[in-house]
């Protein structure tokens, strides 16, 4: 589930209207030799259709493992972890430990996922599982979500090993096989497999990143340090039904409609945490004296200023960042055109503010829906509340140094709270702070194609990401 980089951040960003350079035209700093190696592994990874139920994820794991093995990581530190994700979907996770000869700190965990979202050949302009390079882009399913991150983290390690770099802490790579569906791999990785994955903190390649607008102005580099909890609920009404020629006062569809109207009008209590305060401080600088900028400053000055929070939440750029949000996404009701409905169900998708318990949200929804409506969580996915990860200066400084090298001083680095959910949530829930710090980038909104059609990444973004991770490893384990 890909971060929407910092894109949502700042459509209205910084006003310095320099004659900006197209970042895609800037030459990569990665050597030709490593470009070739990286491209070859990336091509192979993209051409494995590791979609759920296709049984292909094992091949991605073998591809990545073979790079570590060739670099000298012993087989005893390379673990294939098969498991079942969706019923009948046999997938695998890969865990690799790059040992420090003399560890002075607790291990550091690198997170990624090897599965991709389904892509339909008929919908795309080309085969999504044939790797292509065109007009400065690599194209194919998984080029931005997130085989790029798998390849960048692996190749950065391989490159450092080949240069003789010795980390001062173990670096553990954890690549899951079902992030896009159920997150069972991350669940197991953060609990049952903890003896292999335990770490002081985690760095997730499935988030972070920089972005530019269409005029090539830098929009910022957001480090996701918190994410809302994903939880779907069902609103269900029941009725004995009957013949539609004889309508009755009680009607499952009308009762559901009433609950949906109540849901539409409902607003959860505004909340802030360290991460969102950092984010809104940056936004306040970007916005200056605009009405939004003033509203943000008012809310930061007084977190109980609900009117200011409501105004911010109503801005399309900031939706979902001030509180828990729930929205109706699906409806199903009735069984025949000429029969009164015996049941009606609405799917209500919630993104819960970090730290808030899903059962408390359920109780709040039940109260607004009323006694005629049954509110239940989706039994197939029970969200685990995740605390925001504390801001770590070492991580932020490492990212700032990398952002400065590849994008210059105008690319501001700041914390963000993701409104989506990723593998990181499972580790955060189990006490391992996670920071999304991948170094790839794109043009907003043209390159935001994760889960969508004709997914792509700038060629330079792929290559520089290897160097980005090399800098991160050196800074935090050197």
């Amino acid at each position, binding site marked *: 589930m890909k971060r929407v980089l910092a894109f949502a951040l700042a459509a209205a960003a910084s006003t310095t209207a320099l004659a900006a350079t197209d970042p895609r035209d800037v030459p990569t700093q990665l050597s030709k030799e490593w470009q070739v190696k990286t491209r070859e592994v990336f091509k192979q990874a993209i051409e494995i259709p590791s979609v759920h139920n296709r049984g292909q994820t094992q091949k991605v794991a073998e591809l990545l493992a073979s790079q570590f093995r060739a670099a000298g990581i012993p087989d005893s530190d390379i673990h294939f972890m098969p498991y079942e994700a969706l019923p009948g979907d046999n997938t695998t996770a890969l865990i690799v430990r790059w040992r420090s000869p003399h560890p002075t700190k607790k291990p550091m965990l690198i997170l990624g996922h090897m599965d991709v979202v389904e892509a339909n050949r008929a919908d795309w302009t080309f085969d999504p599982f044939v790797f292509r390079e065109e007009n400065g882009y690599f194209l194919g399913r998984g080029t931005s979500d997130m085989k790029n991150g798998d390849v960048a983290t692996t190749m950065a390690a391989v490159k450092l090993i080949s240069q003789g770099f010795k980390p001062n802490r173990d670096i553990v790579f954890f690549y899951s096989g079902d992030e896009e569906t159920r997150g069972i791999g991350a669940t197991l990785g953060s609990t049952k497999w903890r003896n292999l994955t335990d770490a002081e903190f985690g760095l997730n390649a499935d988030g972070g990143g920089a972005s530019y607008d269409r005029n090539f102005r830098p929009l910022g580099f957001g480090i996701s340090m918190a994410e809302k909890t994903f939880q779907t609920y069902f609103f269900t009404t029941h009725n004995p039904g009957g*013949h539609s*020629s004889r309508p009755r006062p009680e009607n499952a569809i009308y009762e559901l409609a009433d609950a949906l109207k109540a849901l539409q009008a409902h607003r959860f209590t505004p909340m802030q945490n360290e991460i969102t305060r950092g984010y809104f401080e940056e936004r306040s600088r970007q916005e200056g004296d605009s009405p939004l900028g003033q509203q943000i400053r008012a809310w930061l000055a007084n977190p109980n200023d609900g009117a200011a929070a409501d105004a911010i939440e109503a801005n399309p750029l900031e939706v979902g960042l001030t509180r828990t949000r729930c*929205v*109706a996404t*699906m*409806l199903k009701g009735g*069984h025949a*055109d000429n029969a009164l409905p*015996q049941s*009606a169900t609405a799917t209500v998708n919630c993104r819960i503010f970090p730290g808030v318990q899903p059962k408390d949200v359920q109780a709040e929804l039940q109260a607004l829906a009323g006694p005629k409506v049954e509110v239940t969580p989706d039994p197939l996915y029970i969200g685990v509340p995740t605390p925001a990860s504390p801001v770590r200066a070492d991580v932020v400084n490492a990212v700032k140094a990398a952002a400065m090298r590849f994008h210059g001083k105008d690319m501001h680095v700041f914390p963000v709270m993701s409104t989506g959910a990723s593998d990181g949530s499972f580790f955060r829930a189990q006490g391992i702070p996670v920071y999304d710090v991948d170094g790839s980038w794109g043009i907003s909104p043209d390159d935001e194609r994760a889960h969508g059609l004709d997914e792509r990444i700038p060629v330079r973004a792929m290559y520089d990401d290897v160097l980005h991770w090399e800098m991160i490893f050196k800074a935090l384990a050197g």
Partner: protein
Amino acid sequence: MRHLLVAASIIAFASAANGAAPPKLTQAQHDAAHAMFEHVISTPTVIGRHNVPAMAQYVADQFKAGGFPDADIHVMPYHTESATTGADETAGLIVRWRAAGTPKAKPIMLMGHMDVVEAKREDSTTDPFVMTERDGYYYGRGSIDMKDGIVAITQAMINLKAAGFKPKRDIVVLFTGDEETNGLGAKHGASDWLDLLGHPEYGLNADGGGGNFNVDGSPAGFTMQTAEKTFASYTLTVRNRGGHSSKPRKDNAIYSLAHALDKIEAYRFQPMLNETSRAHFAAREQLVTGPLKDAIHRWLANPNDGEAADFIEADENEVGLTRTRCVPTRLFAGHADNALPQLATAMINCRIFPGVDPNAIRTELEHVVADPTVVVTRNDDYVASIASPLRPDVTAAYTNAVHALHPRMPVFPEMSTGASDGRPFRVSGIPVYGVNGGWTITPIDNRAHGKDERLPVQSLYDNVVHWQLMLRDLAGK
């Protein structure tokens, strides 16, 4: 689609029974009816499940075993489909019992439908497609709508033939396979199958008529269906550009639809009276007591007394009789739990008062919803049904059959709130009368299309006798 008790004018208040005791079924006839009922209830003849042809063949086999010649038994496979109901390969059944000698008149057509409305296991107390007998009831989908009528007609004909009855005119059976959805079987019947049906003089439909007792055991009346409200369906559609559900937007297809449904819930169409319903309510006024009696009295005295009409409409037994009614029956929206909906639809089912154009109702719904983002469209092109003129022979035969089994039972003509296979025949000049002989307890057994549909056990066997009496009367003279 089932008959619902409601009448238009009193045909006959109970006359003392005419003396002769009604015929009784033998144990073998009783068992045959039970076995056939159990078999057909346990055959889920819902659209899309492909089971109607098997049921048609089964019913055909009963006729064959009863001595009806193969040449006069026709299973008629046909395709049924529409955008809203789905598709199926279904079948009709035509059986012709030829008159002995030269027929005295054109055939009498006996009508029914073999398909049933969907019933979900999880919405029902017991499996709706396993016939369950308890507390004096047969439970199962189709037990009152209307596999009871299929069994009653079939067994009555078999019993009459075994008893040596020789009809003086042809009796022709038409059982259709998609009455609950598209009604194409009845359309075939009124057009390309008409030669096979022998161009009947009139139809007797088991999917209409029937009677009720009140919960206290007092008779609530039997009805003969002569007219029906116009059935028409509409769709409310809201489209939206959608988006990611982590970023809800102000405009949301589901919420717009919820507001539209709320307005339809609150809306009441204009009350209307016609000659038929006026006669019905005049009869009802004599049968009921208390505030309902007062309201009927006030409304008949002053048809502009909307408050009185509203009070009548709110009574469980009178729903749908004072005006056009529309109700949402199905909802559909969205494509993924984590995406904002791009489409939300609601199906609105209307039963339109005779004389009102279904296109005018579409316009009225548009005004009620009053939201240009909610598009109202028609799902069909149905036109109003025509009332069938009362025939003294049919009225007398029905009344006598009812009174043979239920002395002193009031009998009324009925304007049905449902629609039935009768419509294409009525429109093409063949009158149709809903004259089934089954009965239930009102309102607790009003479960056609609903949860835990059920039929009083005794009603099944009474209905076989009822059809025997009707056929002896109408085809035996």
